[in-house]
């Protein structure tokens, strides 16, 4: 009886996996196979594999990029500073705890 129930459960699980896979396949087919075309790249164009430096920047390019650039650099600095502070804080906490424990152990030893 138990064996039949286990086999039934396994069959149900296999069926569910198959239904899930075919559903995912259908969705993928509906979504189409073409990769998304990013802004500034035409359809069928190869991904960029080389950067080309220029001396001057078009005027319309300058303003929108600045907040993104500053956010990126600010984020990196903020994350790293917070992380260094967090390591330092955790290290200090452990050191304090070690000192407390050492003094407690020493006090207990002198009482004995």
């Amino acid at each position, binding site marked *: 009886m138990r064996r039949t129930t286990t086999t039934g459960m396994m069959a149900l699980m296999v069926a569910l996996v198959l239904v899930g896979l075919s559903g995912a396949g259908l969705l993928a087919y509906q979504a189409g196979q073409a990769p998304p075309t*990013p802004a500034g790249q035409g359809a069928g164009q190869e991904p960029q594999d080389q950067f080309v430096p220029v001396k001057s920047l078009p005027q319309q390019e300058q303003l929108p990029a600045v907040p993104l650039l500053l956010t990126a650099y600010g984020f990196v600095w903020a*994350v790293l500073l917070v992380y260094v502070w967090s390591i330092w804080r955790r290290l200090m906490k452990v050191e304090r705890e*070690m000192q407390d424990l050492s003094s407690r152990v020493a006090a207990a030893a002198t009482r004995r």
Partner: protein
Amino acid sequence: MNKGYSLFVLLAVVLFAFAPVLVAETPNEATMGLVQKIFYYHVPSAMVMFMAALICGLASAAYLFRTRPGADRIAAAAAELTVVFGLIVLVTGPLWARKAWGVWWQWDARLTSTLLMWMIFVAYLLVRRFGGPGAEKLSAAMAVFGMANVPFVYISVNIWRTVHPTTAVIPKLPGGMRGPFWFCVLSFTVLFGLLLALRTRLEQRRADLEHLYLLADEE
């Protein structure tokens, strides 16, 4: 703190503080413009993330197969650094993509595999923190799988069709961009070494404290 360690800290601070000055001097890129300068922090962060994941995986393997507690401490430190630098990669990338591609995120091979790798290391930290007894071994096994992802993430841009720039961008960097880029790589690597040493020391001190508690209980 010993003298060598202080010098290491000073070097990391000087390199890291000077990097933005150098980046400001670099020429702008022809198609992407100013926003391409995110590249100087984004790519070194990704390199350091790969480095941290590899160290974590190798140290975890050493802990699993040779049972070396010191290796486990290095692995725990490297896993946390993988998450920190991975977070930087996953935030600075979309900030660049918003301008370069017109969208914050694309579910393409490089971005998705990076996110998955990052999530494996987040899971490592969660298992280690809340997994209870034996969590170290379980998380070490996860780290080995996390490390196995590194080559796939790296070559994903060359194998699959993706909107992300390929790995050929770095060797082909023109003169004005190459110097500042490798300077940033150096400063991120030095900083990574410093953070890894600090974080491993924290794990070491925690182990010392645990040992002290055990001694106190015995007495």
